[in-house]
């Protein structure tokens, strides 16, 4: 096999509204994701719920990353290197389902997102490639 890694990675930027979790993102979001992962322990969830700011300040994250988490701004979290499966520990702790949390990233109201999904989901038509407009 000889896939060119640079071409391989470059194509990921051509997908509309999607952040692929590459090395670059994994490195940027390292501690944000490790923070999120810590919420798998019930005792950490308690401490987090009791004082979110104090808990998050224990982690070596940028202020922007901390704020994105505190705001539950998941698109911003993704931009700053978050990965959805790690971030899931945050919204699960909030008692949100994947359906509820995922909808917040689409710019749609929760009702509109749910309605779209019940109607069969978002069509791939037009959101496959920015460059090729298909």
């Amino acid at each position, binding site marked *: 096999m000889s896939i060119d890694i640079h071409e391989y990675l470059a194509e990921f930027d051509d997908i509309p509204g*999607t952040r692929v979790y590459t090395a670059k993102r994994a490195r940027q979001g390292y501690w944000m994701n490790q923070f999120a992962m810590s919420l798998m322990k019930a005792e950490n969830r308690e401490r987090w719920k009791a004082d979110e700011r104090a808990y998050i300040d224990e982690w070596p994250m940028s202020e922007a990353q901390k704020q994105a988490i505190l705001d539950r701004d998941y698109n911003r979290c993704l931009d700053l290197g978050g990965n959805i499966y790690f971030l899931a520990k945050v919204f699960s702790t909030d008692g949100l389902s994947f359906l509820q949390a995922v909808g917040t990233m689409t710019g749609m109201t929760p009702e509109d997102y749910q309605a779209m999904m019940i109607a069969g989901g978002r069509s*791939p038509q037009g959101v496959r490639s920015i460059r090729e407009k298909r």
Partner: protein
Amino acid sequence: MARITAGVATSHVPAIGAAMDLVKTAEPYWQPVFAGYDWSRRWIAQEKPDVVILVYNDHASAFDMKIIPTFAIGCGERYKPADEGWGPRPVPDVEGHADLAWHIAQSLILDEFDMTIINEMDVDHGLTVPMSLMFGQPEQWPSKVIPLAVNVVTYPPPSGNRCWLLGEAIARAVESFPEDLNVQVWGTGGMSHQLQGPRAGLINKEWDNRFLNLMSDDDGEALRAISHIEYLRETGSEGIEMVMWLIMRGALGKKVRPLHRHYHVLASNTAVGHLVLEPVS
């Protein structure tokens, strides 16, 4: 001699597990999801596999960012359901089959697959939801399980071709295990779904059904050639999980007979796909 008698593919959506745990399966939203597994539950009650080699991905549960194995095989005696942020699922512990697992791990490494051996880990919805779908809600799981965790979270995941080759190598390893065991291989995850960003909610029925056709067919070449970027563009960022189905398909050999097929849009954010295949020798 151990034998691979069947392959199962199924989505592993966490909400499906929650629907079962919270007794919502009869609700109109969920009923058609579960209806497609009725046949499979009757079938597997007759088949009684001794061991399931369960190919799944860990969703940031057992593995954090410190360590990311491409292929990890569970050689332990038992695994607990992971606490994914809302407490562990109320399902039985998963019993391993350490004898067969170590045999496969050793064989795969000699066969030049660079496996990571795992002796202790918790297993998340990626593994337990397929168990619940296929076996319902027993006191104890009727089959032993060898977890095979594939990285599909941090890029790059293994290629579809590499997954297929791993499946073939697993088949060789199972065949050389002296004990007479009925072994199934399950490939889980998918089908089309995207859980992140403004494009979230993507579903691609046409593509998914073409993939189900190819999986049920005797020509694996087209499946092996599907690139990561195609999964991403066509099936959403989380559709990449379908590479794991190819490990199961590779393990069945060239010719297969489809026994059962189910496709339903949707559960939570995900198109549910399910296949039962039999190897034809």
